[in-house]
């Protein structure tokens, strides 16, 4: 801080996550990071680069390729009084740990009648768009958001990448944080004193009156770009960043729909049984009489992610598609 003006500095999303981990490790000796390649390699996405040297191999703990084993170990360590951050390299591999996440982490508190809570944080990269094929391009956040007992976060901005981790570590229950791998290189401005942020409310990232674009993670920026283009045509889109996928802050998007009377959900997950479907249903339940047009969804095409660049781009939600759809929804005789 200088002259009462907060100093802003430019950081990448990756650096923001790393700072968050470092700060948590410094603040609380119970915190440790565990996962594949987090130590000697420096993290698959270089997020934990340098942390091994700083904190040592006990607290920056490389694991074998045993997702179920080390996620379960994270649960056990959390039960045993630690505050583990378990990194699952990408959401695709979370399927190998789904038993531990869903059958143990999510239900321990409930099955024990409230005796045992699991203060575990799992971080995982997610998303497509990097031409890495069907097995490495999934967006399964919405799947996990289906499960009661866990919380699912989706930080899109560097501020949230920096601030959500600590709040998640302070949460008594398991929290999954999904970082879109396409965002790690994104730069953003961070106040010098940036720290913990709430993890249960959505944010209006752009105000508008004609249509609400509801989005999260990397799709947020596509929605913001689309809103900018729409604005030049006289259509003012309100853009909402969900931030937390479970619990869903429905008040924020219902309030917005009550203002704009139109909603378009932009979700990198597949359409069928998706988070977008859930949001659409909530709007129908909570704002039916506010709707002046059917809720629309722009999701990934229902194919495993193809490798070829043009096909992958066609499969993912893109700015021009958002603009087209929003325009149709707002314009008369659309």
């Amino acid at each position, binding site marked *: 801080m200088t002259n009462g003006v907060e100093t802003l500095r430019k950081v990448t999303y990756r650096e923001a996550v790393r700072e968050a981990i470092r700060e948590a490790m410094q603040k609380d000796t119970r915190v440790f990071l565990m996962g594949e390649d987090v130590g000697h390699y420096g993290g698959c996405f270089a997020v934990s680069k340098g942390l091994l040297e700083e904190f040592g191999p006990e607290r920056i703990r490389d694991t074998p390729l045993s997702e179920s084993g080390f996620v379960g170990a994270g649960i056990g360590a959390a039960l045993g*009084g630690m505050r583990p951050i378990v990194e699952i390299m990408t959401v695709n591999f979370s399927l190998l740990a789904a038993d531990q996440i869903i059958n143990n982490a999510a239900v321990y508190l409930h099955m024990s009648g409230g005796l*045992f809570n699991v203060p575990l944080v799992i971080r995982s990269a997610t998303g497509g768009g990097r031409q890495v094929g069907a097995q490495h391009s999934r967006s399964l956040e919405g799947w996990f958001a289906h499960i009661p007992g866990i919380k699912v976060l989706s930080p899109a901005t560097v501020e949230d990448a920096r601030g959500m981790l600590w709040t998640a570590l302070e*949460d008594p229950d398991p929290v999954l944080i999904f970082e879109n791998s396409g965002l790690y290189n994104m730069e953003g401005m961070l106040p010098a004193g940036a720290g913990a942020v709430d993890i249960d409310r959505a944010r209006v990232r752009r105000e508008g009156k004609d249509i609400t674009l509801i989005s999260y993670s990397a799709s947020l920026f596509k929605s913001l770009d689309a809103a900018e283009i729409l604005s030049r045509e006289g259509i003012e889109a309100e853009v909402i960043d969900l931030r937390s996928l479970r619990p869903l802050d429905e008040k924020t998007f219902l309030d917005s729909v009550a203002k704009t009377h139109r909603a378009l959900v932009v979700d990198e997950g597949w359409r069928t049984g998706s988070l977008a479907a859930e949001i659409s249903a909530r709007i129908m339940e909570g704002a039916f009489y506010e709707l002046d047009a059917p809720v629309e969804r722009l999701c990934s095409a229902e194919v495993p992610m193809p490798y070829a660049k043009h096909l992958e781009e066609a499969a993912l939600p893109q700015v021009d598609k958002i603009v087209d759809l929003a325009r149709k929804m707002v314009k008369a005789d659309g």
Partner: protein
Amino acid sequence: MKTKSTRKTKAAALDRDHALYLLRSMIRIRRLEDKCAELYSAMKIRGFLHLYDGEEAVAVGVLEALTRDDAVVATYREHGHALIRGVSAGCILAEMYGKQEGCSRGRGGSMHLFDDKTHFYGGNAIVGGGLPIAVGLALADKMQNRPNVTCCFFGDGAVAEGEFHESLNLASLWKLPVLFVCENNLYAMGTALKYTQAVMDLARKAASYDIPSHAVDGMDVLAVEAAAKQAVEAVRAGEGPHFLECRTYRFRAHSMFDAELYRTKAEVEEWKKRCPIETFTQTLKSRGLLSEADLEKIERDVEGEIREAVAFAEACTWEPVEDLTRFVYSERRMS
């Protein structure tokens, strides 16, 4: 590393009080579960009910090796473990009744008994699912320099799961204080070990992770106790995880609704001759450590305990339906 062969009961001097305690413990489990079967037939208990009948020596012998601060992770056949660990028969039965005074408030049921005071981290109903958690509990102890041991029970079926191998590898790699106890009753539900395992000597699998492994006669409470004590001592001394295969047999069906088509009567009868309670009773009598009067008193006491437990469970209350969505997320934040 070579695994050691099945150990025989040591004929060393046996403290009478301790011997009677072991016998009483096994009888407590047996009688509690007899009552469970009865209550199940009468529809007081519902869901799945997996009884430990015949395997009592394993839980009693192994748990005898632990301290109050050690942690226990068990399977869905865990009534005996909870009882011997110190959860009251009343709280266990109340849980099976589904009542809110049950040890898991009726949220868990027979397969999910939990107790924080005794560090009983639950019956886990996913085969193999408890092993990684035991690894993590031990990791927490190690990182916080606590002298505790985590004891993890699982069946022979779990050995086929990936989580078994991942967990043993992790525990060995990180030299964690875990005692892995395989309750090998020869059947994964209704499929015999010989139909599922290429290598039937389970202790060898653990040995392949450089974990000291022993197989022990799981029908012999003294043998189990001795092996467990030796293993726990080593684990507590910082030697890393140990593995104990307890060869045992369940006399009753896998669960209540089981026609037992997969094994013969003769096989069951043959194993029943090795009933851990019967054989231990005979051992004690032959050594002059147990009289008929002692046995009658044990049975009488246990009968009273079970009677009181049933009365307690009957008198317990149902959690209000308005509380349905509690315990999905914690109601208070923590430090």
